[in-house]
């Protein structure tokens, strides 16, 4: 809106008034808060970080004991949030893509089942799914003594999911090096095959070659080094299992709920992305005799991604924010641990401020990464 001269003066006055009002409000808030904190004997500042925590944390990724500080406890909680966010996003992407592709399948039954999945999960609250998974499904598993044993070394019971723990010997480092080497080779091959195709028209299956190298090189190295890997299997001692890797029900319920719920939304994004491509283009591409795979990769997906990526960014940040529901089923994420700390020392302002800072930082990182992915999607067709 363009403004006339008189309007500009009014605008300036108005903004000054607003700023003044905000400053005054801020002062009032500050003053009240000081008074209230004093009256209730609540400390200020982050000094509490070095105070001994005194409460246990199950499911800690790093060693933790109640003798550690509040600061360390909060750090453990934050680590858990990041852990759930990272693997949650990866898992939900795979499942979401699967659901989205199923939704547009020519197989009526598969498409219908995917539709039922999406319509069911999108219309019920995530917290309900978490309570149900934790309180009914996982709690309904048999006790340790009658665990489910689907594969050797795998045990499922109401105390958790037990997997064999890999014990890496020294020579395993070579297998890792082979993996890194394989990734580099796969990358180089894929780049070079594009140039080769441009020059000669011959298509090299760089995807398969890359996959083969990434899996094959480490595998060969593994056997060449006479299998530098042994396993620690969980063993039932008394009432419980000891050893192995264990995923506790709190973690499992949170992951299952988050991943399945978010996948419904991502599936819808994928579906609407694929369907946004006009069917006439498929007709045109088919009419040239272009193979189905090439049509998908070169005509449908580049256009679908334009729609899918921004919407999915939203869903990723939602998953991270929803991970805070962990507090309701007892998984010690950042909110859960922070809530415990608030319960003990009432320093809500500091803790809540930390929460906000961490979530905003995670969001920024996810947005930045997705913006980069989005720009790559534009480059693909040039």
């Amino acid at each position, binding site marked *: 809106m363009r403004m006339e001269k008189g309007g500009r003066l009014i605008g300036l006055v108005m903004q000054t008034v607003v700023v003044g009002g905000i400053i005054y409000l801020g002062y009032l808030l500050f003053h009240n808060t000081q008074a209230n904190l004093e009256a209730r004997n609540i400390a200020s500042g982050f000094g509490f970080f070095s105070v001994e925590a005194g409460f246990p944390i199950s499911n800690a990724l790093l060693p933790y004991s109640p003798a550690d500080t509040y600061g360390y406890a909060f750090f453990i909680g934050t680590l858990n949030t990041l852990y759930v966010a990272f693997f949650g996003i990866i898992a939900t992407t795979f499942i979401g893509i699967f659901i989205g592709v199923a939704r547009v399948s020519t197989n009526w039954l598969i498409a219908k089942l995917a539709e039922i999945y999406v319509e069911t999960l999108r219309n019920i609250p995530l917290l309900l799914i978490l309570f149900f998974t934790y309180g009914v499904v996982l709690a309904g598993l048999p006790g340790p003594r009658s665990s489910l044993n689907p594969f050797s070394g795998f045990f499922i019971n109401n105390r958790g999911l037990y997997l064999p723990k890999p014990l890496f010997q020294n020579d395993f480092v070579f297998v890792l090096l082979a993996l890194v080497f394989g990734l580099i080779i796969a990358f180089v091959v894929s780049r070079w095959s594009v140039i080769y195709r441009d020059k000669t028209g011959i298509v090299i299956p760089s995807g398969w070659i890359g996959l083969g190298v990434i899996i094959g090189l480490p595998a060969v190295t593994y056997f060449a080094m006479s299998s530098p890997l042994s396993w620690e299997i969980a063993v039932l001692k008394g009432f419980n299992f000891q050893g192995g890797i264990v995923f506790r029900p709190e973690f499992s319920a949170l992951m299952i709920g988050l991943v399945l719920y978010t996948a419904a939304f991502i599936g819808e994004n994928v579906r609407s992305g694929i369907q946004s491509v006009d069917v006439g283009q498929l007709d*045109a591409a088919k009419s*040239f*005799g*272009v193979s189905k795979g090439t049509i998908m990769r070169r005509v449908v997906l580049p256009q679908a991604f334009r729609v899918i990526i921004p919407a999915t960014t939203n869903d990723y940040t939602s998953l991270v924010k929803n991970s805070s529901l962990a507090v309701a089923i007892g998984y010690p994420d950042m909110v859960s641990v922070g809530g415990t700390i608030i319960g003990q020392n009432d320093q809500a302002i500091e803790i809540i401020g930390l929460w906000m800072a961490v979530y905003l930082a995670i969001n920024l990182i996810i947005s930045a990464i997705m913006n980069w992915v989005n720009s790559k999607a534009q480059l693909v067709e040039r």
Partner: protein
Amino acid sequence: MMVSKDIMIQMIDVNKWYGNFHVLKEINLAVHKGECIVICGPSGSGKSTLIRCINHLEYHQEGQIIVDGTKLTKNLKNIEKIRSEVGMVFQSFNLFPHLTILQNLTFAPIWVRRLPRAEAEKIAIKHLKRVQILEQADKFPGQLSGGQQQRVAIARALCMNPKVILFDEPTSALDPEMVKEVLDVMVELANEGITMVCVTHEMGFAKTVANRIIFMDGGEIVEENEPNDFFNNPRWDRTQLFLSQIL
């Protein structure tokens, strides 16, 4: 317009159903090399369905379709091979909006004929010059007018050096002032001896270049004749009714 004795497309007793609706009835048709065939008829008569059966965009339940000596079966390799020899131009152009004009033209030669990019681009430029749209090579379809897009679509079909080009109402979606520029290109192609099968309402075009006009109604071929006889001496009352409505 040199018409050889060789038959390019042959349809024998072709029948097609959509569910239980009998949409193509006992279609028998032979298109010779170098011919320009125009198919006309009221809407819903099955004209588009017929030509879409030729390159298997629609599947026929009964009968045989033979293109350049190869019979059309359900085998995917066979279908793709036939499709690479049959070009198609659509009513709604169907250019790939995320690719430039040049990339639209080089797409099929690169991915189907496996040509090196440089060679594909040479062919593309040649055809862009032919339809007089070379200056738009680096633009995107969304930046072009309807008439320009359709000319690009024709050039795109030509890049595969097809033995036959199918036209599915190529000018029906164009504003009147752009119809001429597209028809001019099509007339040129016909004069060069390219085998063409056109579904169209443009009777002036038909009179100028068509070797034969086929009139379809209710899923079957009613009348098939040379333009002069078709317009002046229709054999069936149905044909006359149709002509009186469109002329």
